[in-house]
């Protein structure tokens, strides 16, 4: 995806179509497939537990990075846009973790109080 800038005017009227640049696209595809295969390997050959869940979440974030960076092209946008998307997302993940931890604690407290 080297030619992602708006350089379409150069050949818009000449009728000549440049060759496709698809190497990085297929590379990203194979990375995504490989990570998914590794996830399945862990699902079948490792006993459930906190470590396995941590591995799953790590691999998921890895996949998410490739989809957002290459397929959605965010890696090649301006720094400002990257931060404008990334900062709210990081805060969102923080919120998610905080809600899970606090909510679990609160839920348990209420449950035990009425037991």
């Amino acid at each position, binding site marked *: *995806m080297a030619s992602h800038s708006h350089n*379409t005017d150069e050949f818009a009227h000449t009728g000549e179509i440049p060759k496709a640049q698809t190497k990085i696209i297929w590379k990203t595809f194979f990375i995504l497939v490989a990570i998914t295969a590794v996830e399945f390997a862990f699902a079948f050959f490792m006993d459930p537990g906190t470590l396995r869940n941590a591995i799953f979440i790590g691999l998921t974030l890895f996949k998410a990075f490739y989809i957002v960076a290459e397929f959605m092209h965010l890696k090649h946008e301006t720094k400002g846009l990257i931060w404008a998307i990334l900062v709210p997302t990081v805060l969102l993940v923080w919120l998610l973790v905080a809600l899970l931890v606090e909510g679990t604690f609160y839920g348990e407290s209420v449950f035990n109080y009425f037991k």
Partner: protein
Amino acid sequence: MSQTTTFEQPNTGTWDGGNEPFKVSYGKLMMWFFLLSDAFTFAAFLTTYGLARHRHQAYEGAHDAFTFSTQWWPIPDKVFNAFPGFHGVDWPLAFVALMTMILILSSVTMVLAVEAGHRMDKNDVQKWLLWTILFGSMFLGCQAWEWTHFISGTEEGMKLADGSVIHGANLIVNQYGPPLFADLFFFITGFHGTHVFSGVVLLILIFFNTVNGVYHRRGHYEMVEKVGLYWHFVDLVWVFVFTFFYLV
């Protein structure tokens, strides 16, 4: 209509919109911000799933001895182990693996369409959009099958204390475990499926526009890029749904 329709001249001064600090068009930037807001929605769903799961007991016994019970949260690969055409055969997570592959492939064909758009290659854009529509529809078909199987259930079902047996799932009872498990399955995969459906509709619209040469006359295929962003986001959400619903 003449080929060189003149639109209203855009303002070019720094303070009347002539400045593009992010070097992307208004439409693309707003698509990014919409997707960010959509991420909030799915984060809310996943938070709810996590909390509901923590409030229920985890299954402690041996993996092979697992039985469905409202006492504990089910193990996903014991619930999602069916494959079309292989009735009663235990293939844990095989079908969801196929669905994941189909969606990743559709993402690839989408980038290829965007890439072809940069080269103003109308034929390639058409070709790759058609592949994306095909894979997207295949995913929806798979999901329809998965839902049907989840709703109708297995022959064994779940035996209750009073001797009656529950087959399948709805919003109130389900054979796989606590009612909330089925509720969250319907809400989370349903919400994602609705996104895929909207994506396929958008893809069909831009496919017709491409065939009619709308984007070629416009001089750029940015609309394909914008729909592409949405489509990749749908794939991204699936990556998370897949991890938190089927693997963890």
